[in-house]
C-alpha cells in the first residue's frame, strides 16, 4: 500500500455506480501541509465529481497553490489523503499525476524559453517517440479548441497569453480526467475567455473534472457549479457560485466587507503630462510586435487604460515609455510635461517625474533576493535622495521602505525581508507604493493587479485613483477589462502594434473594446464598430 498505485482497491465500487452517485473523480481528505513557520494547508477536505467544474477560491497565500501542488505530486502532504476514483492514492511526482490523468496549467508557466513550442510540449509528455505525430496531434487540438499557436516559434518570443496557450494545449493532449487551471483568463480577450469556457464546458460534458482557480469571481459565477473557499490554509466554506454574487464570494474570501473603489467627484483634468505622438518603433525582439504610429495624450488627473490582448505591442509600448528599449525613437515622439524624452534613458525620465511599474514583479520590478530596503532604493534613490556622493544613505533608505510598508499595508516581517519572500499581492503593493510615494507627475503601470488577490487589488486601484486625484497622469496597461472599467477615465485599445483613438470610458461598451482588441481598427478607413458586429470577435475575424 505504501507503493504508488493508481489501481482501485475497492474494485467493484467504480463499475457498479450509477452516474452521479459513483465515487468522486478526486476527493481530498484532511490534507495538511506545514512549511517552516507557516501552516499552508490545514485539514482541507472537498470533492470533485466527474464532469464538474469546481472553483477553488482564496486570496494569495490562502494555500491554493500548495494544495494544487499536492494534488499534482509536486509536494507531499504531511497528513491526509487523496482519493482518486474511489481509491486512495499516493502521487509522488507530476509524472505520476499525468499518468493518472491529471493536467495542470500553472500560474507561472513552466516553459523553457529557448526551446520551441513543440519541444516544450514534447518535454511535458511522459513518452514521446515521434515528433511528427505529435505535431499533428498538437495542430488538431489547436484547431478543435481554437488555440492558435505556431509549433516552431521559440517560447521567448511569445507573449504571456500565447505561453498560456501552450500550457493548455499540452494538458489537453493528454486527455486528462482532471484538469487544473490556475488563473487562466488573465491574458485573454472577453471573446477568447468565452471560447476557453466553451472548451472547458465541452471537456466537462465529456466527463472531465475541472478545478478552476481564479480571482475573477464573475467568471467563476459563469463557469463553475461548485466552489470551495480557502482562507489562511483552511476551508472556510463552500457554495454554488451561480447562486452567489461576485461581491458575496469576495467577502467570503477575504473574510470582511469589501468596498468598491471610490472614484471621487466628477474629475477635472489638467494639462497634458504624457504625450506620445507618431511613435513608431521596431521591437528589440525577433518576434516582437513593432509599434506603429502610436498617439496618445494623458492629462493630469486622468487615468487612461490601454486594453488589448497580450502580445499586441503592450510590452513594447511599456518599454518604449520606460526607456528600456535599445532602439531610439525621435526625441519628440514622447514628451513628459512638454519635455522631449524619447532619446533619454530610464534615469533621466524618472528625474523628470515619470515612474513606471512593469508587469513582471520578480526580476523586473524588483530583485527577488534583495531586501525591501534595497528594492526601495532601486528606483527611488534619485528622486528620494537616498544616495549622496555615490554612497547609499542607510537611514533614509530604510525609512523610505518602512514608509511604503506602512502606507500601503505591505504584510512582511520588515524592511529587511527579501522581496522574493513576499506573496504576489504584497510585493505588488510594495512596488506600486514605491512609485506612488515618489510623487510622480506621470505613472505608467502595466498589469497592476495581475495575479494579485482581491484585497490587494482593491487597495492598488484605490491608490491609483487617489494618485490621479492629486494631478498625476496615469497610464494603465491592462488585459483585465474589469479593471479598466473600474478605474479608467478613458481607454485606448492596442492590436498588432497599432492603437485605437482614445475614447471616454462612458461612451464604450465591453463588446466594442473586445472587437477593437481583435484588430478591427477605426484607424484604417472608416469601419465603425456597428458594421462589424456580425463578424465574430477575436483575431480570427481579422484575417
Amino acid at each position, binding site marked *: *500500500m*505504501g507503493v*504508488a498505485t493508481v489501481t482501485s482497491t475497492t474494485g467493484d465500487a467504480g463499475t457498479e455506480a450509477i452516474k452521479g452517485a459513483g465515487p468522486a473523480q478526486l476527493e481530498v481528505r484532511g490534507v495538511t501541509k506545514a*512549511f*517552516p513557520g507557516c501552516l499552508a494547508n490545514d485539514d482541507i477536505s472537498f470533492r470533485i465529481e466527474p464532469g464538474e467544474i469546481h472553483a477553488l477560491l482564496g486570496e494569495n497565500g490562502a494555500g491554493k497553490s500548495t494544495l494544487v501542488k499536492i494534488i499534482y505530486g509536486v509536494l*507531499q*502532504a*504531511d*497528513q*491526509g*489523503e*487523496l482519493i482518486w476514483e474511489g481509491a*486512495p*492514492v*499516493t*502521487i*509522488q*511526482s507530476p509524472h505520476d499525476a499525468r499518468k493518472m490523468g491529471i493536467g495542470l496549467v500553472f500560474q507561472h508557466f513552466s516553459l523553457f524559453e529557448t526551446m520551441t513550442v513543440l519541444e516544450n510540449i514534447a518535454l511535458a509528455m511522459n513518452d514521446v517517440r515521434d515528433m511528427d505525430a505529435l505535431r499533428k496531434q498538437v495542430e488538431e487540438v489547436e484547431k478543435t479548441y481554437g488555440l492558435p499557436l505556431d509549433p516552431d516559434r521559440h517560447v521567448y518570443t511569445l507573449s504571456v497569453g500565447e505561453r498560456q496557450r501552450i500550457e493548455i494545449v499540452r494538458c489537453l493532449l493528454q486527455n486528462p480526467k482532471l484538469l487544473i487551471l490556475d488563473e487562466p483568463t488573465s491574458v485573454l480577450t472577453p471573446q477568447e475567455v468565452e471560447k476557453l469556457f466553451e472548451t472547458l464546458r465541452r471537456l466537462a460534458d465529456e466527463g472531465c473534472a475541472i478545478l478552476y482557480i481564479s480571482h475573477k469571481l464573475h467568471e467563476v459565477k459563469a463557469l463553475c457549479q461548485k466552489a470551495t473557499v480557502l482562507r489562511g490554509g483552511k476551508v472556510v466554506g463552500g457554495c454554488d457560485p451561480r447562486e452567489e454574487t461576485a461581491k458575496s464570494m469576495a467577502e467570503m474570501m477575504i473574510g470582511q466587507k469589501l468596498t468598491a473603489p471610490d472614484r471621487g467627484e466628477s474629475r477635472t483634468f489638467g494639462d497634458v503630462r504624457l504625450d506620445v505622438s507618431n511613435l513608431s518603433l521596431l521591437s528589440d525582439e525577433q518576434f516582437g510586435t513593432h509599434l506603429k504610429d502610436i498617439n496618445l495624450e494623458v492629462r493630469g488627473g486622468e487615468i487612461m487604460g490601454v486594453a488589448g490582448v497580450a502580445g499586441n505591442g503592450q510590452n513594447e509600448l511599456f518599454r518604449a515609455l*520606460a*526607456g*528600456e528599449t535599445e532602439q531610439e525613437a525621435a526625441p519628440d515622439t514622447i514628451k513628459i510635461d512638454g519635455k522631449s524624452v524619447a532619446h533619454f*534613458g*530610464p*534615469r*533621466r525620465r*524618472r528625474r523628470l517625474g515619470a515612474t*513606471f511599474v*512593469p508587469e*513582471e514583479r520578480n*526580476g*523586473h*520590478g*524588483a*530583485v*527577488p*533576493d*534583495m531586501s525591501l530596503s*534595497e528594492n526601495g*532604493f*532601486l*528606483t527611488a*534613490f534619485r528622486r528620494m535622495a537616498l*544616495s549622496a556622493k*555615490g*554612497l*547609499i544613505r542607510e537611514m533614509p533608505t530604510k525609512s523610505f521602505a518602512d514608509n511604503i510598508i506602512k502606507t500601503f499595508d505591505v504584510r512582511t516581517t520588515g524592511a529587511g525581508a527579501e522581496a522574493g*519572500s513576499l506573496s504576489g499581492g504584497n510585493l505588488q503593493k510594495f512596488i506600486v507604493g514605491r512609485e506612488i510615494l515618489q510623487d510622480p507627475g506621470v505613472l505608467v503601470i502595466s498589469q497592476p493587479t495581475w495575479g494579485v488577490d482581491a484585497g490587494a487589488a482593491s487597495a492598488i486601484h484605490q491608490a491609483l485613483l487617489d494618485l490621479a486625484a492629486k494631478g498625476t497622469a496615469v497610464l494603465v496597461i491592462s488585459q483585465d477589462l474589469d479593471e479598466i472599467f473600474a478605474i479608467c477615465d478613458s481607454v485606448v485599445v492596442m492590436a498588432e502594434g497599432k492603437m485605437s483613438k482614445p475614447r471616454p470610458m462612458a461612451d464604450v461598451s465591453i463588446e466594442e473594446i473586445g472587437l477593437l482588441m481583435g484588430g478591427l481598427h477605426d484607424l484604417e478607413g472608416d469601419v465603425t464598430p456597428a458594421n462589424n458586429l456580425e463578424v465574430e470577435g477575436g483575431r480570427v475575424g481579422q484575417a
Partner: protein
Amino acid sequence: MVRLEPRRQHSQAMVYLSPVLAILMTLVVGGIIFAFMGKNPLDALYTFFILPINNSYGLSELFVKATPLVIIAVGLAMGFRANVWNIGAEGQLTMGAIFGGGLALYFYDSESVFLLPAMFVLGALGGAFWGAIPALLRTRFNANEILTSLMLTYVATLFLSFLVHGPWRNPEGFNFPESRPFPDAGLLPVIYDGTRVHLGTAVAVLVVIAGWLLLSKSVIGFQLRVVGKAPQAARHVGFRQKRMIWFTLLLSGGLAGLAGLFEVAGPIGQLQPSISPGYGFTAIIVAFLGRLHPVGILFGGLIMALTYLGGELAQITLGLPNAVTGLFQGILLFFLLACDVLTKYRVRFGSIAAKGRTA
C-alpha cells in the same frame, strides 16, 4: 531515486558555515590520500597545514603569498557579482608585471622616488588594458569573456617569455632568460624587517576595505549586484550592463595587474619567464571561498596561501610531488561547491518522500 529539491529558505548561517565545512572535509579527504601514499596522515597534515606557519617567518611568508591572491580575488568578486566572468586574471597579472616592470627596466639606473608610484600606475594600467580587450569583445561583438580572457592569458605569458628571452634579457646575465634586476628605487620596501612582507601586503588590506565599501555602501556596487541578480530590473532602472562589463573588467584587470607588479617589484625583483604559480587562477577559488565578499576573501586568501606553503614543505620534508598543492586546491573547491549546493537544495530520496497515508 535521488533528487535535489530547492530549499524554501536557506539558512544564512549555513552560507557562511559552508566554507568552514568544506575546509574540514578537505582535511579529512587529504588525510585519507596521505594514508594511501604511505604517510602517517596526521604527520602529513601537520606538515602541510601547521608546520609552515608555526614560526614568525612562516607566518610572514603566508602574508606574502596571500597578498596577490587577495588583491586579485577582490577584483574578480566584483565581476562575478555582476555575472562578468573574468577567468584571465593570470594574464592581466602578467601584463601588469610587464608594463610596470618595463618601466623599472627602462630606468634601470634611476634613483627617483617617483619610479615606484609610476610603476604602480603602469602596472594597474597594463592589467586594465588586458582586461579591456575582453570587455571590448564582449560589449561590441558579444564574445564570451570567459573564453577571451582565458585565451589572452596564454598570449600574455608567451609575450613575457619572448621579452625575457629576447629584447629585455639582462645583457650582463650570462644568457639566462631573465631581465636586469630592478633598481632599488623600483623595489617595494619591506615593511617588517627580517621578512619578505612588503608594501603590497598593506595595499591588499586597503583593497579589501575599499572593496567592501564599494560593494555594500556605494551606488555603483549596488548597480553591480542588481545587474548580476536581475538584469531586466537593471535595464528597467537604467543600470547599463555594458558599463558594468567595462567597469568590472577594468577594475579586476587593474587589480590583477597591480598584484603582478607587486610580485616582480617585491619577492622576485626582476622579470623572469614565470612570475606566478597560478595566483590568477587560484584567486578564483579564493573569491568563492570568501563568498564574493571582500572580508571573506581576506580569510580565503590566507587559507589558499597556506596550501602553497604546505605544498612546498611537503615536497621538501615528505618528498611528495608538487601536484599535492593543486590537489588540495581542487578538493577544497569541490567541497565548497558541494556545500553550496546543499545549502540551497536538499537531497530527497524518492522512496521516503511518499507520505500520503492510506487509511
